[in-house]
């Protein structure tokens, strides 16, 4: 096909975009055209990686009657470091052009060689701001799919690691990768993930959040039924438990399925810090989460509706401190909660330095001023500050947001019916979570249904030398995780005793 004809066809297909580059070449007497989209390819390397090898190839076939780019001839002879393909269909060629491929067109061939030389700007892997850890790797996923899968490959050097590709989005043609360990992940789970992804018909997938919403088991729930993370070690640990990772191009957040609510309170860091500290951290998260959710409601219930249930000295103290404050407790609590929400949103948008100053001003100065001016009583402020700080003690932001919203339900339940209202609302939330499933796994596992073996690693962190079997929660194909890790130690001791 003459270069002009293909150019014309491409122009018809993709318009004549501003960033479309045509380079007309005449190499060894052959008229060629190199077509690519600027910005998507490494322009400075085209000469070295495309034109140079092409010239060498043309020199080798001079005088031949064969089609210039016939598959048998061209691909083996083209010595270039980039991925190359031979196409015939201009539509397919246009698709690859939009993905950052370079097309070579000649009037001597009906084939269109395409070479992959991506060159868009990437950010290097850095520590995810929302999932910081004291110990452990500092690398998080980026927006580049290849980079992300490489991060996982650098952890798992197992030939059974499978990476399967899909394209979703009629217009965005977003690449999706499914990663799992073939001998661990349950085949039903992998099939189910494929099924749900294949059923998606949307025009755009801009972030993994799109998929999260589309493939979730229960669309109306507030709880995250799919785990999203930016930490490569978290994804690796999940794959080793027999779970499936879904990577989405242009999104640093990798999705992990299935997930349980218990999983959302665990961090890989728990296993880096030793089991005593790891267990302590898990307990703190559990206590923190419960404090965050229940404390404001309990405060409202006990002080406003059921004061008779508080010990008399505590009740008198609170009553003394609340003297002359005009608003009912529930109004005070909602007022502070709303103020905290606003501060939180503002702090997210403000530059870092301004945000920290703003935090001090709002936290200390404004807090002091509201108490002094008789708007909010100090016990309310203390309760709400503890609740707010505790809310983010967990390592998962999505579940914190769910609780952040449900906290208001609990406050309202308490304000209406006191401690009974709090208990009923909490039981309802619990009942709701009992109905949830994530890819066939109970959301409350290993608590309900009770799985004693998995439970031993739930509120506390199980020592690594006792983790001989994988969690049954995710139904892995192979349960055995490790052998006797103390064998060397024991033999060493025996030798020592024999020497003595």
């Amino acid at each position, binding site marked *: 096909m003459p270069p002009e004809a293909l150019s014309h066809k491409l122009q018809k297909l993709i318009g004549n975009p501003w960033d479309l580059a045509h380079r007309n070449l005449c190499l060894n007497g052959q008229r060629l055209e190199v077509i690519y989209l600027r910005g998507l390819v490494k322009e400075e390397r085209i000469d070295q990686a495309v034109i140079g090898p092409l010239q060498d190839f043309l020199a080798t076939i001079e005088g031949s009657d064969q089609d210039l780019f016939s598959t048998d001839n061209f691909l083996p002879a083209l010595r270039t470091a980039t991925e190359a393909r031979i196409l015939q269909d201009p539509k397919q060629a246009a698709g690859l052009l939009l993905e950052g491929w370079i097309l070579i067109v000649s009037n001597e061939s009906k084939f269109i060689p395409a070479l992959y030389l991506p060159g868009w700007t990437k950010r290097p892997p850095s520590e995810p701001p929302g999932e910081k850890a004291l110990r452990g790797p500092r690398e998080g996923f980026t927006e580049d799919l290849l980079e992300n899968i490489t991060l996982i490959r650098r952890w798992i050097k197992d030939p059974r690691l499978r990476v399967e590709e899909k394209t979703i989005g009629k217009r965005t043609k977003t690449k999706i990768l499914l990663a799992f360990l073939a001998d661990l992940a349950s085949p039903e789970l992998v099939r189910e993930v494929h099924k749900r992804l294949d059923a998606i018909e949307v025009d755009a997938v801009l972030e993994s959040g799109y998929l999260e919403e589309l493939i979730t088991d229960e669309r109306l729930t507030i709880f995250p039924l799919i785990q999203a993370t930016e930490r490569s070690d978290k994804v690796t640990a999940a794959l080793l438990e027999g779970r499936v990772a879904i990577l989405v191009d242009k999104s640093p957040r990798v999705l992990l399925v299935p997930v349980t609510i218990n999983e959302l309170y665990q961090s890989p860091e728990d296993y880096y810090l030793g089991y005593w500290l790891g267990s302590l951290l898990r307990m703190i998260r559990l206590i923190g989460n419960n404090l965050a959710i229940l404390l404001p409601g309990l405060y409202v219930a006990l002080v406003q509706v059921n004061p008779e249930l508080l*010990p008399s000295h505590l009740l008198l103290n609170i009553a003394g401190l609340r003297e002359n404050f005009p608003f009912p407790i529930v109004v005070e609590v909602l007022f502070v909660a709303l103020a905290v929400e606003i501060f939180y949103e503002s702090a997210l948008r403000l530059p870092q330095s301004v945000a920290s100053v703003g935090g001090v001003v709002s936290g200390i100065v404004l807090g002091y001023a509201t108490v002094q001016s008789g708007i909010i009583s100090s016990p309310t402020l203390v309760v709400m500050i503890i609740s707010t700080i505790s809310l983010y003690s967990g390592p998962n932001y999505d579940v914190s947001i769910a609780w952040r919203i449900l906290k208001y339900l609990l406050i309202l339940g308490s304000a209406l019916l006191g401690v009974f209202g709090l208990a009923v609302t909490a039981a*309802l939330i619990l009942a709701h979570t009992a*109905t949830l499933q994530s890819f066939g796994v109970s959301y409350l596992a290993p*608590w309900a249904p009770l799985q004693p073996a998995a439970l031993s690693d739930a509120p506390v962190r199980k020592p690594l030398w006792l983790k001989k079997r994988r969690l049954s929660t995710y139904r892995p194909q192979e349960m055995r995780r490790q052998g006797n890790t103390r064998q060397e130690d024991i033999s060493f001791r025996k030798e020592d005793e024999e020497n003595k």
Partner: protein
Amino acid sequence: MKRINKHKALSPRLFFFLLFTPCLAFTFMYFPLTGARVIGTDGYLAIPVAFGLALPITMVARHFTNHYPGLTMIEYTPLIIGKTLGFLYNLLYLGGLLMITIAFLQEVIGIAYGFLINRAPLSFVTLLMVGAVVYISYYGITSVARLASFLFPAALFLGVTILLPFQNWRLLNILPIGGEPIGTYLNGGIQSLYIFYPLTLIFQAAAFADRREKVFPLSLLALGLIFLLYFVNSIGITGVFTAEGITRYLWPNMEYSRTIDLPFFLFEEVGLVFNIAWGVLSYSTITIFFFFLAHGLAELGLKSKNSRNPVSYQKILIILSSIIAGALQFTPDLNIIRAHFSSVQMVGGLLLFGLPLLLFLCSLLRVYFWRKT
């Protein structure tokens, strides 16, 4: 509309909690009353007698589970006694279940209203309770059982709490032992049998268990644990209040928990937490009752006018909840129910334990005649 796949819906653990939670919560707040009233000082001995009387029910359940695997009692009754009789039998049985559900709901609302929310309108509390129950029952047996399983810590808390008042326990209060004629103990045991009424759920729940061979041992385990808890509790409460003291209270265990004195506890009394723990277990119990009631009615195969298919249990659940919520508005208040408590107990016993025993006899007779002919 969702349909329940009975096959492998309940793992052995979920099956256990499905029996254990209702048995624990059902009469926990007031069961010592019966023994104390009927027998007196050693009223706690009514519990082992009742336990002995309830044991045959598990045996009967075992027989039916083995002979009619994967079928609920509602399904196999017509196979044993014929369609018409079976339908009537099932209606009576489900009527018994409905009766104890309403009586239990009345108790729960009574406690909530009496101790925690006496300022809220009763109708509001009723609607809230029934609405919350329907919500979870609607999602099926697995969700209902999962909730029961997740609430195990609350059951554990109740178990620990009944040990704490032993600080005020007096041996003299439970003496003399065995001072009454045997007939009195038997009477006490029969009258206390209502403690184990939720055990009747095995006849329906067994069909959902994924491991049939575990149904009998798990039922025995649940029954045994409940017996142990109730027996210890009964001895404890008699030792603290005396039998005469127990009869003064509407909810003796509520008062019993109030005797716990924990210094530096956040609340004025442990009783509140005790009440809440029992409250959430009761919630789970009611969801279980509601589910089996609705599912049982759905299995009767009732059809609506314009449909060929039987009405789904979810639709029945919604209709049933409206009826129960309405009935609760008009049922006599708790004091009147308590006054006729023995009649409620007797009718409940006849329907929930008597009918399955009768069915068992029919089944044996049927086999006998079949072999003969």
